[in-house]
C-alpha cells in the first residue's frame, strides 16, 4: 500500500545521509479529525512533505441503500450525510427530485425552507468556529459559547420537527409540518439576539494576536486552484471566487432577498474563519426579512403523490448552497418507484482534494488548523 502512496522519488530514509523522514498516521482517533478520518503524513522534522487523506471508515454505501429504497424512503437517510445540518441535506434532495418530476413548491413552503435552511447555516458556522478554535488550543470556552447559540437553534428544530439533529423536514413539493404556535416569536427572539453573540464572539478572538499568528498566511488557497479543484462554499469564497449557488441558480425564492456574498482576499485560514462570521451576519438579515414577510398558504403541493411516486424516466442534477459548499444530488429514473441511480455530490469530500496542497511545507500544528478550516463532516465524506 505504501508503495502506491509514495512516489519513487521519496525514500523514507535516504541512504548515506543523516536525513530521515518520519511517517506518522494522524487519526483515525486524533481529536482534530472530527470523526474517523486519517491522514498519512510524511514529515521532514516538523514539516510536512507528503500528506494523503485516508477515509472510508464510516462508509455504508448510502447510494446503494437509496437505490434499493423508494424516493421518499431515502429522505431520512439524507439527514445522516452531514449530520450537523440535516435540513439543508433534505432540501438538496427534495430539490433534485422536484427537478426530476417537475414539482412546484408553494410560496409558504419556500419561505419555511429558507428560514430553516438559514438557521441551519447559522448553527453550522457557529459550531464550526467553535471547533476550529478548540482545535487550535483555546480549550473549552469558545466552543461552549458557540454551542449555547447552537443549542437555541436546535431547540427550535426540535419544536418544529420533533428532532434536534435528524430533522427529516422536507417533502417533495414542500415541507412536512407547519410552524407550531409561538414558534415564530421564539425564532425571532433567537435571531434578534444572534448579532449580539456575533459581536461578542468577534471581540473575544478575532483580533487576538495568537489567533492571527496561527492562521494568517497559513494554508493559502489560490483562486485558480480553488476553481480547478471544484472547491465550493465559504472555502472558495475565502479565496475570492464569487460563486454562491443561492445567487447563481436562484433556487427557492432567494432572488427575493437582498444579501451580499462576502469574499476573501488571501484565501488563508483566517479568511476562511472570518468568512463564516460574515456569512452569519448575512444569514441573520435573510432570516429577519423572511420572518417578516412569511406568507400564508399551503405548505406542500397537493398534487404531489406520496404513495406510488414514480417519476418519468429521465435524469436531473439538483444542487444547493449547503453551509459546507455545493451539495448536489444526481438522480436517474427508469420509471420505477426507486431511483435507478442516486448520487450525492458531497462538498466535504471535494473540498478535501486540496488538503495536501495546503499543508505541504507547514508544521503539524498547522495541519490541524487547516483541516479545521475546511469544515468536513465524515458522515458526508464517507457516505
Amino acid at each position, binding site marked *: 500500500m505504501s508503495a502506491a502512496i509514495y512516489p519513487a522519488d521519496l525514500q523514507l530514509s535516504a541512504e548515506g545521509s543523516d536525513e530521515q523522514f518520519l511517517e506518522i498516521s494522524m487519526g483515525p482517533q486524533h481529536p482534530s479529525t472530527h470523526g474517523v478520518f486519517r491522514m498519512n503524513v510524511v514529515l521532514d522534522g516538523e514539516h510536512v512533505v507528503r500528506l494523503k487523506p485516508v477515509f472510508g471508515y464510516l462508509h455504508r454505501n448510502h447510494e446503494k441503500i437509496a437505490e434499493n429504497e423508494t424516493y421518499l424512503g431515502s429522505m431520512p437517510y439524507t439527514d445522516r450525510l452531514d449530520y450537523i445540518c440535516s435540513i439543508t441535506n433534505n432540501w438538496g434532495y427534495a430539490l433534485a427530485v422536484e427537478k426530476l418530476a417537475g414539482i412546484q413548491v408553494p410560496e409558504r413552503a419556500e419561505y419555511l425552507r429558507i428560514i430553516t435552511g438559514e438557521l441551519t447555516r447559522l448553527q453550522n458556522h457557529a459550531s464550526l468556529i467553535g471547533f476550529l478554535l478548540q482545535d487550535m488550543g483555546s480549550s473549552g470556552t469558545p466552543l461552549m459559547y458557540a454551542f449555547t447559540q447552537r443549542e437555541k437553534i436546535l431547540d427550535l428544530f426540535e419544536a418544529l420537527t420533533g428532532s434536534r439533529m435528524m430533522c427529516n423536514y422536507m417533502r417533495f413539493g414542500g415541507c412536512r409540518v407547519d410552524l407550531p404556535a409561538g414558534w415564530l416569536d421564539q425564532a425571532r427572539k433567537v435571531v434578534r439576539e444572534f448579532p449580539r453573540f456575533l459581536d461578542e464572539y468577534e471581540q473575544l478572538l478575532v483580533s487576538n494576536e495568537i489567533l492571527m499568528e496561527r492562521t494568517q498566511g497559513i494554508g493559502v488557497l489560490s483562486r485558480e486552484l480553488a476553481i480547478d479543484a471544484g472547491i465550493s462554499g465559504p472555502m472558495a469564497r475565502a479565496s475570492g471566487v464569487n*460563486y454562491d449557488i443561492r445567487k447563481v441558480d436562484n433556487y427557492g425564492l432567494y432572488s427575493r432577498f437582498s444579501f451580499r456574498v462576502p469574499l476573501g482576499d488571501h484565501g488563508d485560514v483566517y479568511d476562511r474563519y472570518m468568512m463564516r462570521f460574515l456569512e452569519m451576519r448575512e444569514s441573520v438579515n435573510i432570516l429577519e426579512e423572511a420572518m417578516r414577510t412569511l406568507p400564508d398558504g399551503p405548505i406542500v403541493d397537493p398534487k404531489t403523490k406520496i404513495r406510488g411516486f414514480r417519476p418519468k424516466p429521465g435524469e436531473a442534477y439538483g444542487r444547493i448552497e449547503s453551509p459546507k459548499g455545493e451539495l448536489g444530488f444526481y438522480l436517474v429514473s427508469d420509471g420505477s418507484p426507486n431511483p435507478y441511480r442516486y448520487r450525492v455530490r458531497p462538498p466535504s469530500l471535494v473540498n478535501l482534494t486540496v488538503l495536501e496542497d495546503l499543508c505541504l511545507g507547514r508544521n503539524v500544528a498547522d495541519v490541524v488548523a487547516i483541516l479545521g478550516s475546511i469544515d468536513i463532516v465524515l458522515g458526508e465524506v464517507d457516505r
Partner: protein
Amino acid sequence: MNLETIKSELEGLVPGCRLQVVANPSPSGQHSLLVDTQHAFAVAEFLRNAPSLRFDYCSNVTGIDWPAKEVSAKVKIKKLVDGVEQDVEEVQKTTIPGTLEVVYHLFSVEQRTGPLPLRMRTTNRDAGVHLPSLTPIWRSAEFQEREIFDLFGVVFDGHPDLRRILMWDGFEDHPMRRDYVAPDDFEYEPTAHDDVLQRANQHLSQAGGR
C-alpha cells in the same frame, strides 16, 4: 448556450470527434453530450479552455452501470404456413450490450452557465475496463474518479493516484455494480459451520470464488 451550438463548435475544434446529444425526457431538461473515448480528453480540454465555453468548474463526477438487457419487439414477417404465405407476428429479441457510463457535470464560474453533463461510455462491463481520466483537466475529478474506480471498477488512464478510496485495499468487488452480491453475514460467525458455512461458500462462489 444551446447544446447543439456547443456540439457544432466542438466538432470544428476537435477534428474527427464523434459527439451525440443525449436527450433527457424529464422536466429538468438537462440534455447531455456523449463523447467518444478517443477524443474525450481533447473535447474536455476545449470545453474548459475555449473562450466562448469556459466550463472551468467540474462539479460532480459519477458512474452509472447499465447491465446488458434484452429488448423484445414484435415484428411482422412473411412466412409459409401450410403452403400459403401469411403475415405472422413474431417476437424478436435483441440484446443491448451492457456499459458503464461516467457523467461529468460541468459549470462555468466565469459565465455562470451550466450544468452541462458530459458522458463517456465503456464498450463493455468487464473487470478493468478503461476510460481516459479527466483529472489532468479538472482537479476536482481526482477523488471522484477514484470513487468510480472503487465502486464501479472503471480504470481511468492518466489518473495520478488511482487507488481504492472508500473500500479497503484488499477488497475485490465493486459494490455499486447492479450485479454485485452483498456479502452474507457469515463474517460475523467466528467458526462458520453447517448452514453458515454453506452460505459462506455459496457467497464466495457467486462472487467469483477465491
